[in-house]
């Protein structure tokens, strides 16, 4: 098996590359072989590296990949119907103004009347 130095080859194999002709011809594909070689600095990220390079060959593979992903990280899946925000439409008829509104409006009128009264108290109604 010919192993040389360099920074070439798919996936930047940290200074190692393997010639295609030197790959074993049975039981392992070229891609998965490179993935297996790509180890992290501490040698523990091989699985993660290989998953990044994973390309599903069919729709079935893609579905499996998705389902695995959601099973490992359930919070990353599609939003559940329970948590989806649904606008609440009230079917109750609108109520009339609250008493506090009536009194608030009355207060405005009375304040205005007092201002008018202060300006011209001689015209104050019911003042005699």
């Amino acid at each position, binding site marked *: 098996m010919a192993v040389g130095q360099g920074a070439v080859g798919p996936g930047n194999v940290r200074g190692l590359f393997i010639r295609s002709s030197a790959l074993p011809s049975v039981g392992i594909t070229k891609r998965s072989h490179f993935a297996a070689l790509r180890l992290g600095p501490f040698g523990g990220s091989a699985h993660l590296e290989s998953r990044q390079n994973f390309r599903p060959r069919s729709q079935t593979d893609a579905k499996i990949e998705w389902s695995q992903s959601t099973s490992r990280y359930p919070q990353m899946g599609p939003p559940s119907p329970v948590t989806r925000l649904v606008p609440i439409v009230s079917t109750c008829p609108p109520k009339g103004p609250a*008493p506090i509104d009536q009194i608030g409006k009355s207060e405005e009128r009375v304040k205005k009347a007092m201002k008018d009264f*202060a300006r011209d108290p001689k015209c104050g109604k019911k003042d005699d």
Partner: protein
Amino acid sequence: MRVIQNVGKRTTSHGGIRMTEDQEREYASAYQLRQNGDLYGAASVLRKLSDELPQSATVAIVLGDTYWDLGELDHALPWFLKAVDLKPSMEIASLALFHCLWKMGRTDDAFDEMRRFLKDNDSDEYTQILDGINKD
């Protein structure tokens, strides 16, 4: 025999209370101070005028309203009470007292004042309030 004060001076009636020309000028200056935003100055002049005219419901109402504008409802209340005592059937005095009590959170006292006034008088304003409440 009725004694008339300020004999020889021209007077005008303000809510049944006669004001001399000097008092009219004082009242006018208080009103102008209010208009210019000097509410404390206006209150000061009106208090002095109230001392001279203790039976004037007009001065009491305007003074109460000035304290209301200052946000001092606890100072406004005694002046509205005085105005109602002086003129029990004066609608604006009763309404001012009602709203002052209401804003102070004394709703029972406010409705007592409403009942007192409506016992002997009519009021479109009170009628509107009651209609609004009864509609709910």
